[in-house]
């Protein structure tokens, strides 16, 4: 009886499930959605109702689960906007809306819904309607090309900022619940993840902002799941790979709901026990800093690790202004790790950062 250990005795107290926050980013770019074969296999209406069902399923997992929905589009096509929860509501310290807007009295006998599901559905549809209305107002019908590019970085930034706000406010609360009973000092946080439903291709000029978001997410241990309904995206593949998220390119978009339910619904706690789809080949190409082109092989500044597709003029690095001794044939094939770290540090404020890049 010398080895009486109180902690072991109470180890069977399993910790309750952490609340889980899902931030959904929907690419609402109209052009891919209305182009065949996607427009026939999965019209936007169907996709949206499937997504709403998926979000309801996420909310059904637990009372504490939360959802946010962000729309991503081209700057002229609406930009990045939070559709749900609506921002206008005054929030209390925990980030919850304090009062709800008055709602019309439901008709007796009308089929009803679980309140959070109803709020979510109405919120998302209203938010989407607002975004589309603002696009229609601004659209002068002159420039079609700008509309076709989806800027995903803005939406990712919004998502990360939102997660940071919620998790930051909730961290203290959760820490308490965790210490309760078990006596452990583990600092609890909210389990957050991002799901990007993407239909458009990459915008090469967005390489640096997207990668910055990816590294921020990686540091915060926020998985970025990517559901590629159409097209192909190098950057999002890398995002999912770097953050430990799920990347899937849908072969059969009409089975969208089943894909969502199987691969994207399990939260981080359940994922420990499940085999989820992984990418066999990740496209690790980067975009150069000088012409924003996606390159296979390029030049890397030895000081700040910036990437160039051609030798910069006068052999001076455009980011850190270092005079580089460039010899012909000194072209370097980048390694995976180097490139990632390089973009993280080299793209900051343009200041030379010398030192070992962090993995």
């Amino acid at each position: 009886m010398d080895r009486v250990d109180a902690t072991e005795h109470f180890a069977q107290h399993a910790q309750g499930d952490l609340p889980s926050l899902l931030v959904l980013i929907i690419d609402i770019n109209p052009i891919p959605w209305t182009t065949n074969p996607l427009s026939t296999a999965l019209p936007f209406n169907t996709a949206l109702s499937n997504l709403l069902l998926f979000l309801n399923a996420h909310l059904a997992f637990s009372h504490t689960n939360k959802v946010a929905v962000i729309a991503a589009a081209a700057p002229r096509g609406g930009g990045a906007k939070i559709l749900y929860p609506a921002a206008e509501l005054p929030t209390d310290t925990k980030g919850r809306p304090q009062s709800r807007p008055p709602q019309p009295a439901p008709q007796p006998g009308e089929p009803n819904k679980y309140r959070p599901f109803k709020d979510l559905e109405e919120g998302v549809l209203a938010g989407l309607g607002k975004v589309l209305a603002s696009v229609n107002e601004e659209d002068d019908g002159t420039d079609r090309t700008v509309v076709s590019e989806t800027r995903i970085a803005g939406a990712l930034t919004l998502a990360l900022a939102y997660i940071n706000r919620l998790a930051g406010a909730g961290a203290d609360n959760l820490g308490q619940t965790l210490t309760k009973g078990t006596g452990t000092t583990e600092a609890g946080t909210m389990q957050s993840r991002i799901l990007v439903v993407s239909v458009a291709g990459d915008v090469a000029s967005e390489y640096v902002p997207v990668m910055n978001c990816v590294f921020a997410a990686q540091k915060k241990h926020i998985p970025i799941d990517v559901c590629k309904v159409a097209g192909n995206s190098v950057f999002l593949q890398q995002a999912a790979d770097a953050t430990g998220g799920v990347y899937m390119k849908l072969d059969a978009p009409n089975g969208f709901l089943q894909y969502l339910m199987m691969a994207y619904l399990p939260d981080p706690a359940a994922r420990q026990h499940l085999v989820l789809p992984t990418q066999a080949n990740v496209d690790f190409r980067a975009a150069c800093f000088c012409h924003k082109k996606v390159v296979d092989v390029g030049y890397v500044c030895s000081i700040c690790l910036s990437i160039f597709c051609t030798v910069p003029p006068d052999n001076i690095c455009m980011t850190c202004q270092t005079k580089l001794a460039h010899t012909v044939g000194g072209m370097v094939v980048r390694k995976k790790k180097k490139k990632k770290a390089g973009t993280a540090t080299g793209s900051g404020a343009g200041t030379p950062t010398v030192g070992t890049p962090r993995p």
Partner: protein
Amino acid sequence: MSGSLQSFEQLEALPPATFKKLYQEPCTTLALFRRMLPNLAKSIVMAMLYQDDPVPMSFINAWVKPTSRREKEMALGKLRRLCITSEKNQKLTLDATFKASFREALTGGSRSFGTPCTTEDKHPVTVEYLDNYATAQWEAILHYMVGTESERKPSEGVMRLLVAGGLMEKRSRRAEITQAGFSFLLQDANTQVWTLLLQYLSMAASLRMDHVEILHFFMLLGSLDLGQAYSKAGLTPTQLNMLEDLRDYGIVYQRKSSSDRYYPTRLATTLTSESAALRTVQQGFDAAMSQSGQGFIVVETNYRLYAYTSSPLQISLLAFFARLSQRYPNLVTGKISRQSIRQAIRMGITASQIIDYLTVNAHPQLRKNTPVLPPTVVDQIRLWQIEGERMKATPGSLIRDFSTERDYRETLNYAEELGVLLWRNDQKRWFFVSRHEQIADFIAQRARAQAAKAQGRA
């Protein structure tokens, strides 16, 4: 997991026909899904929800990591016990009623989530009022249990329920609190409510009320909205009867019993929340109870305890496990000692209940520390409990009389994977398990397979 889940597990013992009836209501389906299933089981249900064909077991086996076999078996076992899935020819099928109701819950289109009142109430009720009402009713019950003098006395029905639930005992004229009652008092509000409601459920049989209707109503209350009036239309006679009892507990509010509307209080709307959400409920209550504000207990590393309270209820609770020495108008001081803790444990209060209570009610000043309570005190309270626990009893079954070593080994391995194995003796080929249903299935399956093999050979 908290105690509420343990008491919730009583529901697993319901007969399959009852589950079938329960799954007819989308809101009950949703609540049971949320409250009773482990995380992995939820994922499995969701994956199967929109598939029309049965899922082959081989698919589930491939989907779950081989290292998580134990969790998988636990999840599948739970689903089987709750009659959500059934297995046939190595294929897993989701119960049709469950599937239909759950889909309906997610997509809407049913009328299962209460009928809100359409007309304006002549006497509108605010959320604060409801909170105050619920707190007053609930506290009255607690006060009655600890025997403090208070102006409000709970109704006859409540008293009968407390006695029937073994929380109080009739001695001479007055009812006295029992050991179970003590540990009841130290639990959080949600657990307390569920303990009483489940007791209500078990009493229902004698009152000739339908189990299913009662459970439906509990789950319905859990899905309602705080501060919203709901119409009594559509409730069954049993449920109308219940409404009156629930009003006594402070779970629903009605201005008059003849009124055709009712308001769920915070006690009701949090019924189906998980343990993680409980503290926020507590805070909601605390905001309503302005006098006690937030936490009020300060514990020092020298085992001294200071409680900024004048509530007789809180003081009597503290007196269960601490030796109180001084009392000021707004402050009680005392000391936690081996003797006081041992005394509490003899009354049936566990160390974790005491620690939970102290943590939940910790003073804001104390809350700035991590961990909230001084670790020395927490550890010592636990050690004091272990002192008396040299022996631990676990209910279960002894499995023995294996004919061959191979039979014994394989069954043993299976039990180990399930996580139910508690003790083994290889020489005698005996082992002890905490749960025997799945093991019995396994043995029967093996016997059948062997018989089939023998037949094939013959």
